């Protein structure tokens, strides 16, 4: 009743005017929210990594966990090869090459991949860099495919081969304890 009550403004020619108290909007106190957001912002800025290699974790692939990590050799340029149990993806653009069975059995698939690797290796060496192959493979993949890819990449002048894994500081995780 009080909220809706009005008083008659006699001076204004009898017009109704709402009460002044009803016009006041209470300010929302957002100071605590700002505090939380500031802490969040500082935390994220501290932990952020601008390294492009860090961001290329393949989707839908379970990578093994390791404690050691190696840096790419000086003036090395990595070419990505993602080996899933059902498909092979080439390059940062993840171009599908074929399945693992296709790779082992079909010479045309092998030849096309070899051509791609050779072209990439030539373009890398032409700018004075060293071609490196970064193999990202699923942890359940049998080693026969890895061995095949290593032999294959050696044919395409990739002398530096790296495996991708998830980094951890806990050695027990690697030892399965």
């Amino acid at each position, binding site marked *: 009743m009080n909220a809706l009550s009005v008083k008659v403004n006699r001076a204004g020619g009898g017009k109704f005017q709402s009460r002044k108290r009803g016009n006041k909007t209470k300010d929302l106190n957002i100071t605590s929210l700002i505090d939380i*957001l500031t802490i969040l912002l500082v935390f*994220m800025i501290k932990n952020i990594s601008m390294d492009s290699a860090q961001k290329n974790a393949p989707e839908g692939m379970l990578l093994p966990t*390791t404690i050691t990590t190696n840096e790419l050799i000086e003036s090395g340029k990595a070419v990505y090869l993602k080996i899933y149990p059902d498909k092979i993806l080439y390059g940062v653009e993840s171009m599908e090459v074929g399945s693992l069975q296709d790779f082992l059995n079909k010479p045309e698939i092998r030849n096309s991949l070899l051509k791609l690797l050779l072209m990439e290796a030539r373009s890398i060496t032409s700018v004075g860099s060293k071609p490196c192959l970064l193999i990202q*493979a699923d942890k359940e*993949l*049998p080693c026969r495919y890895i061995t095949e890819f*290593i032999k294959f990449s050696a044919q395409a002048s990739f002398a530096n081969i790296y495996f991708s894994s998830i*980094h951890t500081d806990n050695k027990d995780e*690697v030892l399965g304890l």
Partner: protein
Amino acid sequence: MAYGPSKHRSRSQNETREPNLIPIMNLFIVIIPMLMTIMVAVHLAMIEITLPTEAAGGGGGDDPEEQLEEDLPKVITLALLPDRFEIMVEGIEDIITIPQLSAGTYDYFTLDESIARLKRNNENQGTIDLLPDPNVKFDTLLRSIDICKSNNFPNIKYLTSSTKYYKAK
């Protein structure tokens, strides 16, 4: 003639004015989702391996060269087999065998201890030859490489040859 401060002015100075936080909020609402999208949740590592090179030709029979060969580090080969690990050290007959704990569960702890012991006995050796069985999983391969590297064997030579060392006798 100077006038004193008005009553209204003194009253407004006493009131604490709250800062306008709306622009800061707007900024935060844009920055935080942007940072969340580019933030790296999983840190990827890279493990380097080396490929086997053609063996260098053997030397003659001169005494200094023979003495030099004695100082050469012994070749250590780690074989990853479907049911066990096997470590062979050049010049030692006994092969270190580390069987699985249970079906599909490798004994990485014993492998770590064995590799650490080998490092203590062969301090000048920094390379391990790795021979994985075709059916061994990539996870086992990478864990074994990691164990070798963490025990100061930085060079892992991936043997792509299918010849088994223990059958070559």
